[in-house]
């Protein structure tokens, strides 16, 4: 019975956490720029305003289905990541499955944006995919390293292993190289400032979101909120020993978010190929060293 309840309410809880995290992010950025900054629930207002827009334009049936695929894919990924109290689905798909399901939303968005026939959108998508190739290789290598270390690819088993020895059992502690590499790759995955090549308002008119108005942009922002939660939770599960209870889970979420936001607030944006070169230099080398330590 509790799993059915979880299945119904878990997306809503995750959405709420995501919105608050994003609002906190905008407040954090404002305060770094010595501005007062919007209220924490600003993102919620934005989403509500977007969803309540009277006229919405779409560029074809694929534009709509792609948006549905975008949000649907993210919800799918949400269910497969174990969270304290709810890891029912992770018995049916390990983190290899999660790594691939993560690609469904980006593919969905890419198709939808392609359908809008706007070159800004296409350039945005081509940059997003190049960035994907950039950060996903070190990220995947850290996954594999942890899997070989733990001997299994199942999420809940990895968490159980880490929690067995308390704080020193965390992925970050047992293999710091992989932990740090994954952190940098996570930064790229979140699309935060130095690697924010996709939504580059000054260069390509908010990239993929150029032609997304009204409820389309609303759905993308909902997806972005959920995505933030997913990515952070993956990192927590693999490297910060998962979360025994919701309190430690929320604390870890906010600490990690602050860490990323602090980097985001200070940096300008890389060019695409420089961002990818950076991703294939620093985190990849760290990950390789980490993996070598494990297998030798």
């Amino acid at each position, binding site marked *: 019975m509790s799993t059915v309840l979880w299945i119904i309410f878990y997306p809503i809880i995750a959405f709420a956490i995501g919105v608050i995290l994003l609002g906190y992010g905008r407040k954090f950025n404002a305060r770094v720029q010595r501005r007062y900054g919007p209220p924490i629930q600003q993102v919620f207002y934005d989403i509500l305003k977007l969803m309540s827009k009277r006229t919405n334009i779409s560029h*074809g049936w694929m534009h709509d289905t792609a948006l549905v695929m975008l949000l649907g894919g993210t919800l799918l990924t949400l269910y497969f990541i174990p969270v304290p109290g709810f890891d029912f689905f992770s018995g049916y798909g390990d983190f290899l*499955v999660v790594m691939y*399901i993560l690609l469904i939303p980006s593919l969905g968005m890419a198709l939808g944006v*392609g359908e809008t026939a*706007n070159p800004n959108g296409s350039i945005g998508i081509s940059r997003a995919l190049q960035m*994907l190739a950039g950060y996903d290789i070190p990220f995947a290598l850290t996954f594999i390293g942890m899997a070989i270390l733990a001997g299994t690819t199942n999420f809940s088993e990895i968490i159980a292993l880490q929690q067995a020895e308390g704080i020193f059992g965390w992925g970050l502690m047992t293999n710091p190289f992989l932990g740090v590499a994954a952190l940098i790759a996570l930064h790229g995955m979140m699309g935060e400032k130095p690697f924010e090549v996709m939504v580059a308002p000054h260069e390509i008119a908010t990239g993929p979101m150029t032609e997304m108005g009204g409820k389309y942009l609303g759905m993308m922002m909902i997806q972005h909120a959920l995505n933030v939660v997913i990515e952070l939770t993956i990192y927590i599960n693999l490297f910060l020993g998962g979360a025994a209870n919701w309190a430690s889970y929320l604390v870890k979420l906010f600490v990690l978010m602050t860490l990323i936001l602090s980097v985001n607030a200070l940096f300008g944006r890389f060019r*695409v190929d420089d961002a990818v070169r950076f991703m294939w230099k620093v985190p990849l080398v760290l990950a390789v060293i980490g993996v070598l330590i494990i297998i030798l």
Partner: protein
Amino acid sequence: MLTEPVALMLLLSVAGVVLNIILYRLQSLQMIVSFLVFAAMLALNLQLYGTIGETLVLPVVVFGQAMSFAVSPLAFYFTLMITSITLLTVIFSLESLRGKACTQAYYLWLFLKTFGMLGVVFAADLLTFFLLWELMTWGTFFLMQQTGGESFSPAKKYVVYAVSSSMLLFLGIALIHAWTGSFSFREVAAAFPHMPEGMMLLVVLLMTVGFAVESAMFPLHAWLPESYASTFTSLTSYLSGISTRMGIYGLILLLFGFVGHELADRFQLIGVINLRYIVSIFGALTIIIPTFTALFQHDAKRLVTWHGIGQGGYMILGIFSANALGIAGGIFHIFNYMTYVTLILFSIAAVEYRTGTSNLNKLGGLIKRQPVAFLGLLFGIIGLAGIPPMNGFVSKWFIYKALITEGYPFLAISAIIGTLGTILSVYKLIHNIFLGQLQPEYNEIKEVPFLMQLPIWVLMLAVFATGVFPGPILSLIAEIQSSFGLAPVPYTMTGVDPAAGTLDMLVITTVFIGGLLLAWIVFLLGHKRRHVSQYQNYAAGHFLDESIPYNFNYNFYTGFEHIFNPMKKKVIARTEVAVSSLVEAAGDYLRRIYTGNLATYAMYIMAALVVTSLFLKELI
């Protein structure tokens, strides 16, 4: 003896060849006859399952060995693919080749090639295997140069590669025969372990390189993209679907039929590096390098053929991992790959049928005119990229799981790099053809006729069904593994046995559909939406209309251009040119021996006399 499906199928394909020779000029008759014969063969193939294990010996005796055929589970698995894809290609080309030039011999060579492949797969002895292997490679050669003109030079390059690979195989078979005295697989397999170390290594090397050329493994893959892409697109899909996988069949036969796993590990070089690991490294390189070359192609067909090579790398990685899951993944990937690559190429053919070009820089926005082709390509690319719920994901998951449990991180990461490269180039494919602005000259094109849509619908269903329910195919693969004496893969109807790993495609798909429904509800919460024309688009206040080309197709991944340009040194192409110029130089030099003046000729004779007598003198 002749009623057995095996004999009937071989007989039918030969009958097909003869019929097509007779009906050489009448294309419509050829089409109907070929369709019927191939349909009959597929029907026969389904009965084949019952007769696994039986053998058929032909009275033809060559060099003391009667040509014998046997139906093994692996043979059934491959014939299932061969007959189904040939039938689909024929159905597709019934419509797409109507009225095209130089297609008289199209079905003739198709039958010859099918006969060759069926023979190779059914062969129970090395002689039949090699005889039909040669026939098959020459069949491929003739299929490749159907469109005349610019398809000749790549076909010639293929001939050189194919003939040298079959010569290597020939030498290997001859050595095996010299040692074991007979051709049939059973005796060879029995006598193989007792072969002296050096000779066995030589034979295995020869055979592996021979099969590697045919399955386009990394350093020997240069012949594939140009020659597959320059013939009719329906043939491109047929060739890249099944033809290159005969090399993989050969590798499976060699590795599991003769050498067996414990022997493969015996060639220890340093530590963990043994023959299997070296071939896996080549497999990994086969995944990475062709996939990232595909990224920069400007022609849809070449892009997909480059991926053909890349996906071959997954199969090699799977087969050469000594883990039940990996081997099952490799073999399953052959089936998956065939389904979605033919689906992609049929969609590209549908586009080319209507627009006349497959140049990625000239197309765009065709989703509005050819939705079925779009859906086909969409399912195909999701499969090719290996994203759930399509079948590509399942076999890739098997391979990754095996590589991780066996502890090969760098092979696993090369596979993932391959997947990422695939996703990038695959999106470029669907974006440049179907998305973006519709060019004014393609305004009036319509959807392709039904006969061309049928294979696309069938393959879409196949890609999705085997993705969600991989059970039946996995059961067949388990049978194959046990027929070779390997541990069968622990499979369930919808994924992997929970003990061996956590994958249940049915649950993943249902949750995905649930997520889609939820997203659809959120979509409906907002107000109504309206479809608008493609010219109502944000262009910084600029007015858009037909005259302004507003597409971003050319040089799609500029970032990667900067990164990879210095690395593009076309090493393979340069080595090829070096080899051919070496042969030409040798030809020139040797030609000069015949100088033409008499004195030198007489001098040659005297020298020969002196040499022979000296040679004989000190030897007596």
